[in-house]
């Protein structure tokens, strides 16, 4: 049963720590609980989004720099 990691906050989703840095995770990567998947920027404050389950990233459901709502699925982990 794939797990969907939901955005805890509304804001802008980033898949990199900084524009000139590599992606936190790619599709197909293995993740452990607590691994940083991305950032949500809310009113100029940056909040890390961490994996709640271990597994493999099947698919990103939100793009880098995409506006997201609280509760919106960001990534699918199986």
């Amino acid at each position, binding site marked *: 049963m794939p797990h969907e990691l939901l955005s805890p*906050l*509304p*804001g*802008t989703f980033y898949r990199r720590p900084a524009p000139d840095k590599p992606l936190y995770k790619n599709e197909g990567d293995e993740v452990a609980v607590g691994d940083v998947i991305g950032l949500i*920027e*809310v*009113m*100029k*404050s940056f909040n890390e989004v961490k994996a709640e389950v271990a597994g493999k990233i099947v698919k990103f459901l939100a793009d880098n*720099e995409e*506006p997201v709502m609280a509760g919106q699925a960001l990534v699918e982990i199986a």
Partner: protein
Amino acid sequence: MKELKSLFIANRGEIAVRIIRAARELGIRTIQAHSVADADSLAVKMADEAVNIGPPHAAKSYLNIPVIIEAAKKAGADAIHPGYGFLAENAGFADAVVAAGMIFVGPSGDAIRTMGDKVSARIAAEKAGVPVVPGSGGRIEDLTEATQIAERIGFPIMIKAAAGGGGRGIRIANTAEEFAQFLPQAQGEAQAAFGDGGLYIEKVITKARHIEVQVLGDGERAIHCFERECSLQRRRQKLWEEAPSPVLPDKVRRKLCASAVALAEAVHYKGAGTIEYLYDDESHDFYFIEMNTRIQVEHPVTEFITGLDLVREMILIAGGARLKHRQDDIKRSGHAIEVRINAEDPARNFMPFPGLVKGLRVPGGPGTRFDTMLYDGYQVPPFYDSLLGKLIVWDETRERAIDRMKRALGELEIGGLKTTKPLHLLLADDAAVRQGQFHTRWLEPWLEANAAKLAE
């Protein structure tokens, strides 16, 4: 010059509303730029026209120069007002507006470039006879030379990596011994971290106050509109601003304001600008730090004590008018205080709190002004800064103004959101704030000490 009859507003939030108000009183048509996330904003509702300039992400909308220029041209705008933040201090944007045949409401691209670069701004200030923070002025390569400069300016001294930034590579030496120890370390670290061992040193002003002078210029002549004090800051963000400063002696005020006028005239400053200083309360020395080449968030406190409309003046000057005031025309009276109402929860380390406004009560009454973009039922978007509004009060004395601020804060209700209102209520009752006894590093330890009260 082209007559200014229509104004494109390349900004959002409360300042967009403020600009629309000033323009409307002048009979100028307003065109409000907005991102998809701001389609329901108060500025969009108030402006004569609104133009969608793109996605919520600021880089794709409010910071997108080609899209903004194209939208303004298409709307037939004579001028673009940049507000504050976003593109307000982007020299390339100012140039692009002019190149597209429109007026930029602000100084020339060259003036923005000169004052925007720390080193060239410091040089311009020194040339105009404005005191700067004593230091090496530029890079130092040689340790002997550094030691000589250090002895001349006195301790404590900040050692910074010339190639550093964002606080990296900074050390503070309190004595000559520490300086001798830290300097080679800093040089080695700078070399390792930035591939450049260049350093510069600056005197540390330990209990500095932040005092800034409002100026208006028409490119030839400049005037000042007195000072504002903004020492109550958290993470370099101002939270409480007032005019006049509660501690500045009149003699120092005259010198400070005159130095700001000299600098504004030296760079042929056009429009509204602010020259920021550090002020040492004990020695009464002041030092130039930087110039902001735009309207500032806290401009209303100056408007309250002088009776001027600074946004109107900047639009008139942009339209080609000469400065209509002489320095002697600018009088100040009473005391004004502004507090920033941010969508942040002071009980939870100022966590941002965007959301739906359900139940809004705006303060009113004598000497009370609330500049905001809120309305009942407004959904505060999470994509931009957290400023919801600015509560500004005026009264005859500072004591009275603080009492009035407490009264006005009591009337303010923003249902559905957490805001900085409880913080300001606590500050208004604080003995040190009442006595004007604070400096730029005062608020952060105060917040830690008062965390329990803020959590109530």
